[in-house]
């Protein structure tokens, strides 16, 4: 019989101790965790501390290009990086559903460990709870992280100024379309994978050439459209994008076309949006393109004066349109 999570794994007894020892501590191996305290003690470099938390519920748990474990690490690492922070440590909380195969859990934890190693952060504290069968969806993961912001760096969504350049680090919509395709069993005749990745190393390089960077944002749920609109609102400016410059994989464009979706509204998990003073844009672009995660980086627009805080786009055909948040769910067209 395949080994499964049962209620005793969350009950605080020996089964739980063994699970934690065997599975989590072994995979995530680091001094803070090894001490076995409830609270991790950290030595942090000097600087201001940023902190972020995120919960991950995703179906399917394993998808092309990642799984819920790696996503939980990338997501929080990126949130810290978008605050200008160098990630220092993460915590991880698991809510497991009774009956969940332990082999799957091992796979998820191993993938978290790998993602954390790649990002250069440790998972220093964890927690596990088990809920009865039917009350969860296999596994939910929460990660919380802290990072330290180097002196002289202040990243804030309210700092975009008229004239600033808008850059994106790569192709848009890859994650959302990969997930949708694997969830719906859609066959596009392609092998799209999620772009999920930790962006902190690229951000560190970016901040070295542009310490006066104004805004960083990872366009996850709601896609690029939501991210640029949030920035425009927060900063009280307008943003103008150039459709012709948007990096898009042909497969993503095609899938969105078939499904009646706008790639600008589709989620990304390994991309960032950067807004910087115009004089820095070219240097920043080169640094981004030199990073494997930023190969397809592009300057996609500029900050403009608009008291209504609208985001508009010059379309590939030479017209203009708004780029808006989506209302409700994205639905395929029926006409």
């Amino acid at each position, binding site marked *: 019989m395949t080994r499964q999570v049962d209620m005793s794994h969350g009950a605080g007894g020996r089964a739980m101790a063994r699970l934690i020892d065997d599975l989590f501590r072994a995979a995530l191996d680091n001094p803070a965790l090894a001490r076995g305290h409830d609270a991790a003690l950290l030595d942090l470099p000097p600087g201001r501390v940023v902190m972020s938390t995120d919960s991950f519920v995703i179906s399917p748990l394993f998808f092309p290009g990642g799984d819920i474990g790696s996503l939980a690490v990338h997501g929080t690492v990126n949130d810290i990086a978008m605050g200008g922070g160098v990630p220092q440590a993460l915590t991880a909380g698991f809510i497991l559903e009774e009956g969940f195969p332990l082999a799957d859990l091992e796979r998820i934890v191993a993938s978290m460990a790998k993602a954390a190693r790649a990002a250069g952060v440790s998972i220093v504290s964890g927690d596990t709870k088990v809920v009865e069968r039917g009350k969860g969806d296999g596994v939910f993961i929460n990660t919380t992280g802290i990072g330290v912001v180097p002196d002289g760096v202040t990243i804030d969504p309210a700092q975009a100024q008229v004239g600033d350049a808008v850059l994106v680090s790569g192709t848009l919509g890859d994650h959302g379309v990969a997930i949708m395709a694997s969830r719906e069993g859609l066959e596009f005749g392609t092998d799209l994978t999620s772009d999920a990745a930790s962006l902190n190393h690229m951000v560190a390089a970016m901040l070295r050439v542009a310490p006066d960077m104004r805004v960083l944002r990872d366009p996850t749920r709601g896609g690029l459209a939501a991210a640029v609109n949030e920035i425009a609102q927060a900063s009280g400016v307008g943003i103008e994008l150039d459709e012709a410059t948007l990096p898009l994989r*042909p497969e993503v464009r095609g899938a969105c*076309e078939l499904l009646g979706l706008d790639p600008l509204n589709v989620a990304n998990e390994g991309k960032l949006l950067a807004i910087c003073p115009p004089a820095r844009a070219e240097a920043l672009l080169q640094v981004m393109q030199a990073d494997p995660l930023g190969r397809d980086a592009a300057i996609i627009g500029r900050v403009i004066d608009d008291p209504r805080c609208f985001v508009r786009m010059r379309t590939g055909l030479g017209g203009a349109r*708004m780029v808006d948040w989506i209302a409700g769910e994205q639905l395929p067209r029926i*006409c």
Partner: protein
Amino acid sequence: MKYVEEFRDPALAKGLSDAIARAADPDRTYRFMEFCGGHTHAIARFGLEDLLPGNIRMIHGPGCPVCVLPVARVDAAIALATQHDVILCTYGDLMRVPGSGFRSLTKARAAGADIRMVYSVMDALALARAHPDREVVFFAIGFETTTPPTAVAILQAAKEGLTNFSVHCNHVLTPAAMRAILAGGDTEIDGFVGPSHVSAVIGTGPYVEFTRDHAKPVVITGFEPLDVLQAVLQLVRQVNEGRIEVENEYARAVSDAGNLVAQQMMARVFTLRDRFEWRGLGWVDHSALRLTDAFASFDAERRFALELPTPTENKACACGDVLRGVKTPVECALYGDPCTPENPLGACMVSSEGACAADWTYGRFRREAAS
């Protein structure tokens, strides 16, 4: 998807745009109705307004399936879901369309009704197979594009002997709606950008009759932006030359005869209704389909008696006028405040094919100039 790229080429678009500007007579205006919501969406999304001279006005037509559904039919969907303990399956757009008293399927679902959003009628059929103990009703909406799949599902259900599957049929007919718009007499139109997907099913024949009866040119075209520009160019030329013809710019998908297999299937399962109520157009003769008597057992309208409220329209909502092209979305007093896609007060603000939603989502930056 190289295929798509060819229909979005900026240089070709510029060429068409220049050709339209050269062809258009500056001493007159051109009013063209794009019938389909798909075209409305493409015009807004690609900013095609900017590629047309000021004296060519695109009037948005009623080709948005959820937009034309009258309040009484929305009420029927809600009643089906709440009065008979059925699993009601529907396309997602319908969920948020307000019925009488601001009720909607979304609210009915929150109150406990079993309503499932499906991507195709086949999903509904699968649910019926999976839940033999439940009645599964597919709330069918749409023009001739979505009608053949509904017919296929009914034929399949009959073949499998499924007794718990039925269809609430709201399939409507494009040519009848085009005639009704002109019969209304309050919309001035010089020509029609004809449907793409619909025409792939019905062919060009119905439009030939239409142009003969109503003396308006029709150019059938696809949903790609270059298709739309090409159709506008052909319409301008027809108007200039006094020609009134059906031209088929979309020959890569539309043949004169249309899809005969689909037509035969539709004829087996569906028959014309004497009349059907449309939002905006009122009761229109021979404008919609119902199930034939042979398939009566799959007809939810005959299967479930419904207690319906007296339909109450939101008086201030101008959807009816917008659907006929009499008003533009901004001319509705509710546009933007309080009616937005987050808080739709009318169907035209719900669907991405609706004229109000397209204008709000893609075009509202034009409305008031930035200071």
